């Protein structure tokens, strides 16, 4: 039990660091990497709880999250390349056309 809460606290810390990164950085590739960090923090929660409860469903979810992350990486990086071709920059502040 104590072991489980250590894992959950670590996962919360990693998730918060990822949140700060998404909000604070201007480079969209680094923002993307921070989103990957948040996904991984959630994966750690899934595996820790799956181990604690003796049930493999959480680990199957982690497998699906990894698949979605791989698809997201492919589409996201293609979008960054298209963005760079249009604006000659990968700064999130340059994508302000729809900003209120």
């Amino acid at each position: 039990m104590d072991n489980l809460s250590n894992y959950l606290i670590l996962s919360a810390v990693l998730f918060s660091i990822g949140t700060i990164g998404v909000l604070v950085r201007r480079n969209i590739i680094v923002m993307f990497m921070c989103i990957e960090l948040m996904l991984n923090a959630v994966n750690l929660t899934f595996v820790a709880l799956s181990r604690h409860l003796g049930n493999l469903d959480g680990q199957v979810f982690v497998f699906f999250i990894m698949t979605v992350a791989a698809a997201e990486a492919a589409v996201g990086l293609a979008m960054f390349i298209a963005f760079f071709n249009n604006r000659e920059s990968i700064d999130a502040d340059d994508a302000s056309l729809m900003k209120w």
Partner: protein
Amino acid sequence: MDISTIFFTIVSVVAVVSALLVVTCKNPINSALSLILTFFCLATFYAMLEAPFMAAIQVIVYAGAIMVLIVFTIMLLNIRADANKKSFHNVPLGIVVGIITLLTAGSFLARGKVSDLPGQITPNIIHQVGHTELIGAVMFTEFILPFEITSILLLAAIVGAVILAKRNLS
């Protein structure tokens, strides 16, 4: 303190420090390398949690495939680390929101209680049958529909990536 607690402490310190480096490094390549280190730490945790298959695909898919893609894109775009250009914005607000997230998660952890129902998959069974076989048995029976839908998702991602990366859409 037993050896697994000491090992957990060391690896978690490495994971948190490298996660902080992802956020604070100015050069995206340094951020990417720190993120790979974080992923290896997470793979170590999966191995400690009796999930060797998860540890293997964490290294192969995340630290391998996805990070290679990211590093490749950074190199392809050839972004020069511009010294007089700011690489951060909204720092105080971002840190406040991050701390609020952490406190919310902490309050859930402090007030909630995880059920202690013992499941069927004990470390003994994992050692006897094998983790990969157990995962496969669950995935191809109970989760067969999500598994098939995932293939459509991947197809859509392939087509989308190819179309988006074309230089002029005509």
